[in-house]
């Protein structure tokens, strides 16, 4: 299951599929970007971050891609598992200026087994 290009509020995938969650950020001065996972009844949990001097960063099963030209951020989750079901938010800020985080609209990922 892939969700490429546009932001969609929900994404449903099968266990084992790769998931792609997209985010369009608003401020061209932003130089730091984070993806958070929020499970029901909990606060946001850090997944992975990337600075504006990079265009790709990999973690464990997750990859973040940054396209500054079109102000687009994506989160790729490999071999999606039921435990990945949650709401995913991207957030941005101007770390140099020390501004507060601005969160995007969330995407609800549902993984069925």
């Amino acid at each position, binding site marked *: 299951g892939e969700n490429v290009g546009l932001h969609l509020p929900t994404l449903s995938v099968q266990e084992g599929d790769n998931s792609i969650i997209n985010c369009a950020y608003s401020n061209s001065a932003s130089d*730091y970007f*984070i993806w*958070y996972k929020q499970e029901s*009844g*909990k*606060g*946001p*949990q*850090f997944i992975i*971050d990337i600075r504006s001097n990079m265009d790709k960063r990999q973690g464990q099963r997750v990859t973040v891609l940054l396209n500054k030209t079109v102000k687009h951020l994506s989160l790729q989750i490999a071999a999606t598992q039921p435990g990945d079901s949650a709401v995913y*938010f991207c*957030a941005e*800020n101007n*770390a140099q200026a*020390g*501004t*507060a*985080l*601005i*969160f*995007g*609209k*969330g995407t609800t990922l549902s993984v069925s087994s």
Partner: protein
Amino acid sequence: DAGVTQSPTHLIKTRGQQVTLRCSPKSGHDTVSWYQQALGQGPQFIFQYYEEEERQRGNFPDRFSGHQFPNYSSELNVNALLLGDSALYLCASSLFEYREEKLFFGSGTQLSVL
């Protein structure tokens, strides 16, 4: 090592009342930020406290105020509650030198205004 703890977990108030929410930061952290998360939306920044002073503020009215204590814990106060203040209020802590990096969130206080 306890993470960010918030109290209470749930709260019901009526319009016009005042409310105080509490937050204890993660051990070793000195900065506390508060966010409001309306249903189905991303968190919105309210303000940040460091060294017992408000360092940054988002686009929220003066009805929203806060405090940070010498032990780094913090309170969020909201006066003259409106129905639209119903939301999940999240506290996040960090080390000031890292700014918004390495931000740890609590599970929040769910406020319902009737």
